């Protein structure tokens, strides 16, 4: 924990720099969402990667996780594992397959 004066003084500069980086990344995300990649899933992947980078910056620097005690890391390990399971549940939806039939079949209008 940044308890001494110099460490906090140094962090202040970083808080502002990271803030600007976050805003730039947000603008980047907006711009990239209008660029059509070969599939929309790629767009989603790019968007989520950018979001994860931003989230990591907030968590590490704003939330002081870069120099936190091990107790907190232990709590967060549980969180990461359980949240991953929550999202991985989606994989089981493939047991119940949904066929992509175009946006409303029939769509042969051209």
């Amino acid at each position, binding site marked *: 924990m940044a308890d001494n004066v110099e460490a906090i003084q140094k962090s202040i500069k970083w808080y502002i720099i990271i803030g600007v980086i*976050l805003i730039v990344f947000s603008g980047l995300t907006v711009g990239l969402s209008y660029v059509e990649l070969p599939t929309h899933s790629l767009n989603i992947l790019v968007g*989520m990667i*950018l*979001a994860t980078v931003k*989230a990591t910056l907030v968590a590490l620097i*704003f939330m002081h996780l870069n120099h936190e005690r091990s107790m907190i890391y232990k*709590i967060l390990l549980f969180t990461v594992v359980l949240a991953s399971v929550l999202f991985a549940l989606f994989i089981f939806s493939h047991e119940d397959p949904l066929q992509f039939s175009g*946006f409303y079949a029939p769509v042969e209008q051209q």
Partner: protein
Amino acid sequence: MDIPYTVHARPDTGLYNAKIGIWLFLASEVMLFGGLFSAYIFLRVGADYPWPVHDLDVTLGFINTVVLIASSVTVVMAWAMLKLRKFGWYRINMAITVICAGVFMFNKSLEYKAKFAHYAVKLTDGTLLTGHLPHGYHVKFEGVSELNITVPLKTSGVSADPVNHVLPFIEGTAPKFKTEDGKEISLDEASFEALSADASKNAADAKKSSAAIKLVATAPINFAVKPSDIFGYTDTTITFRDGTTATGKLVDDKMTLEVDGVDARGVAQSEKSLAFDHRYLGEAWQKAFVENRDHHITKFEKDYPTRDKTRSATLQKESLFFKLNSAEPPAAGAAHGDAHGAEAHAPAEGHGGAHAHHPTVVLEKKDITFFSNFTPKLNTYYAIYFTLTGLHGLHVIAGALVLLYFLAFDGKRLRQDPEHLANRVEVGGLFWHFVDLVWIFLFPLLYLL
């Protein structure tokens, strides 16, 4: 009694208690929002309609993103200033954080308000029209002379309550009613109670399962009801939500819609969409639609010659979800349509410039299968959008209130024990950063992708 370890660290954990507490709480919040995000994934993958992309106001969403990021910076700065005992800067940063929260919620209220006033109407051929209802949408009945009320004798899900389910929708003041035995009453809670008790007793004696009460109006009644206010209607009868029926004449159930979009993605042959029927938008708009569609398809074929057109959600949307931005079709030509065609109506005053340039159509009930404003009941996308952003908004309000409390009411602690206040602000700030984290994922997922 002093709460221990609010300032100094506990020897075994190395942290003050609130720090562990808040991280445990944030861990549970991750599961809360994680569950909703997981629901979003399921709903999106399972959707049987084109999932809306860029349908929300991206500019307003981006402003909110910048505002929330700025507030994240100021809240951690407030903590740092407090640790450095720079109380003036502490207060300023906290104040900016709370103001940013206010701006965020204000923008959100603008978004929600616009959505509630915007309608989507699905037609029988699968076309979706979007637009505004400048005069609302009411079903008009005239010449109703009697009410037929059925009071069930056993407890039932539907029990007669004409005072709350019929009276409010009478145009003008309600007339007096004559009961079957000639008594004239005005219908209110007390008189209906008496009537109902009487009829029920008679029906019970006759071993019937329900009591029928007929009330004849002393003057003919007119109704103007929203479809959601009644159970159903035919050309001659309305059935109210409590089971009461009234016989009269259906005068008008047409919907006047100011159209700002035609979504033909659900129609087999888009140019033959019911929206371009001569009664509605007409040929000139149909031509404009076809031009726009073909232009986008040609451009896509040129830019991406190897890609499958049916798999590009963006192309489907650009070519088939046609936005109408003027009262007259762009290359209008001579065909100005007949009386039901695309007429330039000046909208109701309350709407201002934003919808001043849209054609108005008068839709017949038989062509409409479903309509709703942009609320959770429209489709699963809006259901999850409002759930996620609504719950997030509540978290913003809660976080802002906590930070406001520290700013406004902890003056004594500021003077006497600033280290304790710094820890409180740090913990409140951690919650605030979590709220920002959720928005960092929400914004791209809902607004951009």
